[in-house]
């Protein structure tokens, strides 16, 4: 059993991430204009919104991977604004970037074992290969020779091995075939049942709707709306307005 489960018991409301008044800049451009959001332990939360609304930048800002930031980002109750990116990972944060970030010069297994273990309780290589049999078959191939779907599996799998208990996933279904998207959905449900906290930047609302506990709508670098899973039906027309679907 994964030890993440006992940790979670009785701690459902434990605040794993609190972002308040977050502004972020790329050079002269002001991208985030005061993001406020809270994610509890074991929750699956999505950031919805149009392209360019600032969803990916929010994740990168949490990782301290943007130019300049102001505001506050608390992880497990600890202020992280002055932390170097490599220290963020050691707080148990696993990041899966947009475009996946698979290393071409590394084979599949090297890609998989590249991120160092940051906490105990991560999945073993065998467990990962059981979850993603394709990766086992292709473990000696160069990372970027995989299909798009396999690369996405790899990008996700490699942060599961590290023991990270909060996953930031950026557009993981982008450009993938429906059957792969379905498989990713199953994987996310599985991870959620293990007690992992997941923050999902997603374009595909139909993919996230059945998975997520809550949704944040990001627009012009701010949180425009917060919608819980139970409010989904009553607020559907509002959401459609924001997302233009």
């Amino acid at each position, binding site marked *: 059993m994964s030890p993440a489960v006992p940790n979670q018991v009785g701690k459902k409301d434990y605040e794993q991430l609190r972002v308040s008044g977050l502004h972020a800049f790329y050079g002269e451009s002001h991208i985030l204009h005061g993001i406020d959001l809270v994610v509890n332990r074991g929750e699956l939360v999505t950031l919805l919104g149009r392209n360019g609304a600032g969803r990916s930048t929010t994740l990168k800002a949490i990782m301290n991977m943007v130019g300049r930031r102001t505001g506050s980002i608390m992880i497990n109750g600890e202020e992280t604004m002055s932390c170097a990116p*490599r220290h963020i990972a050691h707080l148990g944060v696993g990041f899966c*970037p947009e475009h996946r970030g698979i290393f*071409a010069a590394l084979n599949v297994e090297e890609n998989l074992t590249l991120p160092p273990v940051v906490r105990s309780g991560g999945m073993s290589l065998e467990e990962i290969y059981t979850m993603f049999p394709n990766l086992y078959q292709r473990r000696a191939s160069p990372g970027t020779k995989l299909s798009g779907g396999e690369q996405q599996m790899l990008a996700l799998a490699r942060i599961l091995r590290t023991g990270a208990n909060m996953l930031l996933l950026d557009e993981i279904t982008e450009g993938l075939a429906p059957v792969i998207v379905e498989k990713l959905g199953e994987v996310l449900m599985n991870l959620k049942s293990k007690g992992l906290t997941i923050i999902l930047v997603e374009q595909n609302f139909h993919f996230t709707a059945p998975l997520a506990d809550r949704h944040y709508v990001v627009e012009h670098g701010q949180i425009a709306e917060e919608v819980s899973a139970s409010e989904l039906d009553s607020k559907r027309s509002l959401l459609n307005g924001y997302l233009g679907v």
Partner: protein
Amino acid sequence: MSMILGVPVAVLFGQLLLGLINGGFYALLSLGLAVIFGLLKIINFAHGALYMLGAMATVILFDTLGISYWAALFVAPILVGCVGVAIEYFLLRKIAGQDHIYSLLLTFGVALIIQGVLTNMYGVSGLRYSMPDVFKGGMNLGFMFLPYYRAWVIVIALLVCFGTWFMIEKTKLGAYLRAGTEDSQLMQGFGINVPLLVSLTFGFGVMLAAFAGALAAPIYSVTPVMGSHILIVVFAVVVIGGMGSISGAIITGILMGVVEGLTKTFYPPASSAVIFLVMVVVLLVRPSGLFGKEA
């Protein structure tokens, strides 16, 4: 005596051997440059000066402290490697992320300073270093005479090159290095200490140069300017092989040494130009180098 294309066999093989030795030095030096360029994207113009420091250190360590050749093979690279780490930490890190030209000028300046200071202290006429006794003499292979030291240089240079290649391509540490070459920001996001990796990589590349210097001490004239002569050729080798390619640096280094040796045998006037001629042709036909990835 038997002849090949009008050249005595012994002369031909003698030049081939010299070419292989020069090639070994080219390979060690261009390998260090390639390792540094791969991760730091820095064109290290101080590489020749650090090679010279390795040779000077070997001689000076022997003269002042009586440190033997064998010990110097380890001590000199470690000392000079520390100099390299200091250069990275105190100077190069300050201009990280700037245009290539800044690090190029900075390392060039560092090279001039090191060279100038040592010229002031030791002059340019060269220091004497006697070959360790084990290496005196050689063996007659029938078709040529093989000095022991030259054989040793070829063998150890190839071993170190192969070891470096193996470390980079086949080990976990090498995987960090290769990944850092592609996306060091994401590496940081995974919790990897990239600044440390950068320092160590620069230090390691510098150690390779200093090791080449220590190897060169008994056979080349050890002077404060020995590095500036070889560096230009080594840059040509790196361009021919393709910037940043590890195996490319090794193979091209040895190949160019041999090409130079053969040219010396058959048409001596062209021998010092032949590598640059190859460079021009390669740049015209395959601008990214023989082993470089097509841009």
